[in-house]
């Protein structure tokens, strides 16, 4: 059974043409993988579809802009996957 990280890594590899082996749980989507905001929309779309959720990108952006969160909390992949798991859990609750 594939993990959330496996699925997300596959999506990123396919969407952004990044070798799968370069995508690690510790990778920062923006700083390490150099994914720009437009490509991240494609990733968000694929994640939304794959997991049946809606990544709250606007809320996350606002929190980062307001200094209430860091990009690491949302864009380091292991953290992103935790957020996805929380959204999946909240959907099923």
């Amino acid at each position, binding site marked *: 059974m594939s993990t959330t990280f496996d699925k997300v890594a596959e999506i990123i590899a396919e969407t952004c043409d990044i070798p799968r082996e370069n995508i690690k749980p510790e990778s920062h989507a923006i700083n390490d993988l150099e994914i720009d905001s*437009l490509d991240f*929309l*494609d990733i*968000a*779309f694929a994640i*939304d*579809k794959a997991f049946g959720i*809606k*990544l*709250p*990108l*606007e*809320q996350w*952006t606002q929190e980062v802009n307001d200094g209430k969160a860091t990009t690491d909390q949302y864009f380091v992949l292991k953290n992103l996957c935790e957020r996805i798991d929380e959204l999946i859990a909240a959907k099923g609750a």
Partner: protein
Amino acid sequence: MRLEYFQMVDRFVEVDVGARLARAICTVPMQSTVFEGHFPGYPLMPGVLLIECMAQTTGWLVSALTGFTGLPALAGVKEGKIRAAVFPGDVLEIEGRVIHEGSGYAIGEAKGRCKGAAVCDATLTYRIIPYPSEELRTGLWEWAERINFPAKEFAK
């Protein structure tokens, strides 16, 4: 089509927000300076303007779905296809669908037909950005009325 103003839609003939579907008519003008250059002696509707017809038709639908809370800025065009030549005077029937409403973005699919034949289609990505000016937002109501789009019905 007010080509000189880059306002491509003449009128909406169907807006079904529940079904995430809109249909619009875009009539290519007989005269435009665009056709003096594209091409001399062979006036041809530029393919990028067919994309724009689809983007505006679907963009209005995105606006309705998001309650006119932001401007759907075209951010991506995928699988864009121009299937046939379109000429001055041609009447385009454009159909736009929203297939996904994300947080701050939306994905649409659109296609255009002319004289019963498919002429264009594309998958479109929009970023929903805050209106850069109140003037723009208030100007939308007049524009919407002109093209038969029930904007105020959906405005939050």
